[in-house]
């Protein structure tokens, strides 16, 4: 009797599991067998036969993002889904869980799944070289997006130049201050991450021409609002009203710093990068003077379009740059409710 109930429980558990994942997979998988069946032959045919335009219809493209738990990556994934639907492409986006090894195994899964191209948003520029190597070995084009991979094997790279973002916010802050002699503090991203290194480089490129702008202090707040708030509180205690402007390498940190500033009853201008929803609001209320918008949608669509071109045997640029866009009190309305 006991055995029977155990076996019954097991069968129930297993069938529940099967039900769960078949239900989940249905949405993305119903149309897959037909297109994937013919896709293997498609690119070859278009390559030799009619060269008429780069049709994306029926292609299968996979993407692995270093995480799907930040707004920026979610925006890329969502834009990719929309683009794929519009263009009749079968698209699957994977969450790399901040782990290069996970991303590598996802690339391998995509290869066995027979995708036509892979989009890679790497957790780390160096650690994800293995992903590129795996795709190249399998003869599948691999396009980097948003974060560079230190490999010359990458089919193409679509991103925005973080150095120029650093330069743009520093220049904007100088224009805003209307003087070239003031003190700033800089909130940095996680030390060693390419976005941190390059935005820092950009800020310093500008400062090289302004010897009277002094960096009172700089430190990492790891892209985090709460860490930035704590750091800013410490700085306010240390430097008081010597701090005349806050330059943050992303919006989250600019917002955290601004919270600390408001709490201390001060009014120090803050600027950030990325153009997240909260930052657009902050620009509208004057809590941030501006935010340099990084175009997630532009980057991922650029990558997908490049992938389609490569599959169809067309030439693409090795590096495709999507410009940052400054969100200011004059134009913030264009960015409200965009996502």
């Amino acid at each position: 009797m006991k055995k029977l109930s155990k076996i019954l429980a097991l069968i129930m558990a297993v069938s529940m599991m099967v039900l769960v994942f078949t239900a989940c997979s249905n949405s993305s998988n119903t149309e897959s067998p037909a297109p994937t069946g013919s896709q293997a032959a498609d690119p070859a045919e278009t390559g030799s036969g009619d060269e008429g335009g780069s049709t994306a219809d029926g292609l299968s493209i996979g993407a692995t993002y270093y995480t799907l738990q930040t707004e920026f990556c979610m925006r890329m994934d969502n834009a990719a889904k929309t683009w794929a639907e519009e263009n009749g492409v079968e698209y699957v986006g994977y969450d790399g869980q901040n782990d290069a090894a996970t991303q590598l195994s996802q690339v391998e899964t995509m290869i066995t799944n027979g995708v036509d191209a892979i989009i890679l948003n790497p957790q780390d520029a160096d650690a994800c070289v293995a992903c590129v190597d795996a795709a190249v070995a399998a003869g599948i084009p691999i396009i980097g997006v948003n974060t560079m991979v230190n490999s010359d094997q990458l089919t193409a790279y679509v991103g925005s130049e973080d150095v120029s973002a650093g330069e743009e916010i520093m220049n904007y802050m100088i224009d805003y201050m209307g003087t070239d002699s003031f003190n700033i503090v800089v909130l940095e991203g996680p030390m060693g991450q390419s976005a941190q290194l390059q935005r820092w480089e950009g800020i310093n490129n500008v400062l090289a021409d302004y010897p009277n702008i002094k960096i009172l202090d700089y430190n990492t707040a790891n892209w985090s609002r709460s860490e930035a708030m704590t750091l800013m509180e410490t700085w306010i205690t240390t430097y008081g009203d010597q701090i005349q402007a806050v330059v943050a390498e992303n919006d989250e940190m600019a917002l955290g710093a601004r919270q600390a500033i408001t709490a201390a009853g001060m009014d120090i201008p803050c600027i950030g990068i990325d153009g997240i929803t909260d930052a657009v609001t902050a620009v509208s209320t004057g809590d941030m003077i501006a935010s340099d918008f990084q175009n997630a949608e532009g980057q991922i669509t650029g990558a997908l379009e490049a992938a389609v071109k490569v599959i169809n045997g067309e030439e693409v640029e090795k590096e495709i740059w999507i410009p940052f866009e400054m969100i200011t009190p004059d134009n913030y309305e264009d960015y409200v409710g965009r996502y």
Partner: protein
Amino acid sequence: MSNVSTPAAASIKRSRMSGKQFISTYGSLIGLVVLVIAFTVLSDGGRYISGANIRNILRMASINGLLAVGMTFVVLTGGIDLSVGAMMGCAGMYSAYFAQATMGYHWFAAVMVGVLMGLAIGLFNGVCISYLKVPAFVGTLGSMSIAQGLTFLITKSKPIPGLTDGFKNIGNGFVGPIPIPIIIMAVVLIICFTLLYKTRYGRYIFAVGGNLNAAHVSGINTKRIICSVYVISGVLSALAGVITTARVTSGVTATGDGYETDAIAMVVIGGTSLAGGKGRLWGTIVGILIMQCLTNGLDMLGVSYYAQLIVKGFVVIGAVMLDGLSAD
């Protein structure tokens, strides 16, 4: 596994144990088979069981599974090791440091640095828990933080690229058609099965986990046994870290982050009781394969990561539920 002739007491203990565990072990095996069949049917043209995909699954299972194998030893004594993921990252990073082409060390030296790192942290865990009476949960939680700190210390959180080809080969190379990580796992499993089921040491581990006082009274050096399982866990975690680093061809600080929960899940799915004394290494292997087959299969079907988390949660709970029912 239990056909060897053993002293009477041990053999009675073992036969009772395997009787209790029979259903749950059998259950998870059936679960695995059903999973594989289901994924094969659902995947496009059955490419789930293609040679390349099986190789992918086994390679990942070999790397992540090393943590679970070490964890099995710890859990059998009634302990837990929360530091496996951090040790993995730490060992990987230190071995990467010495595996840089510019450093000019042989790959084997780099591997040994990593393994020794794991051994040291594991020994630290073991001493704290067995001799200094720190609860396992707290002790390994502390060393998890220490190991993460050590990882950042060596590199200031920057990744370490430019590893030698010999080192990278550990994660990416093949012997014939078989990836090297799978071979390493096979060797580790042979050693662990021998240790656990063919030696006195293995019986002591079960005894300590089953009833610590009884084991102590019967003359077993329980402290040394408990200490040793954390060393085993440390060394195997380190090995996983070294292989992962070699596989992604650079040292990354985030390696191993959060892997401890997966390792514990694999052990639990395999039917090893968190209370200690009861369990099978064989079950852990099934647990490892279930987790890896699930991840790979759901990825292949394009199931979102969020849904995957939910499915995996149900699988873990379901497995323990089965275990509980079979213990009635």
